[in-house]
């Protein structure tokens, strides 16, 4: 398992390739890789969005992400996982988050990926502040309730 918080733009496919080539465990047992990539949109709630800053609580962020993965491991058979999340200043079309889950079977990989993503959105201390087309800034306040 690896968790990475970065303030630099990242290529999710390179991150995935690097992890697969250097750190991935249980190679022979892997039958499924599920990937989620979240990208910044240029619109939200009826406004054009020109940029965004993502704040986080260092330390608690990593701790809560580990908890998300541990809970997923308790529900599905996961062989390995990778989470990369962006913080700091970000512009539309840049990647915000990568979640990859490796498992022996696709059902576990699909479900665990979605669980981790939904748990991230509802429990991990990141906060988005958008720059909208009127040059104003606003905190994103809508939340999701987790995996259902």
């Amino acid at each position, binding site marked *: 398992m690896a968790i990475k918080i970065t303030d630099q733009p990242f290529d999710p496919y390179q991150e995935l390739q690097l992890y697969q080539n250097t750190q991935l465990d249980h190679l022979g047992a892997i039958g499924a890789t599920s990937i989620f990539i979240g990208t910044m949109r240029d619109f939200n709630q009826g406004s054009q969005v020109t940029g965004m800053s993502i704040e986080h609580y260092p330390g*608690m962020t990593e701790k809560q992400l580990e908890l998300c993965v541990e809970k997923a491991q308790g529900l599905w058979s996961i062989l390995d996982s990778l989470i990369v*999340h962006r913080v700091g200043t970000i512009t539309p079309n840049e990647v915000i988050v990568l979640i990859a889950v490796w498992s022996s079977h696709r059902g576990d990989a699909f479900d665990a990926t979605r669980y981790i993503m939904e748990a991230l959105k509802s429990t991990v201390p990141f906060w988005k502040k958008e720059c909208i087309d009127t040059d104003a800034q606003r905190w994103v*306040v809508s939340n999701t309730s987790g995996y259902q």
Partner: protein
Amino acid sequence: MSIKVYYFASLKEHVGSSEHELDFTQSLKVKDVWFQANAELVLPKNTLAAINMDYVDWDSLVSDGDVVAFFPPVTGG
């Protein structure tokens, strides 16, 4: 006894500071921490609290050396 209190995101702007040090002599609940540190301020609805980076409820007791954090609902991903 002494604790650190951190604020994040919109709550940091609401409080006007990212952290406080708070000294106390008798046991405190998390909700007491907010009102002692921010007596003049309304506690925004839906504010979340953590002690030492774990989510807690408002009646949880804080101990000497704890790090308490207050922040709005999270919006990552």
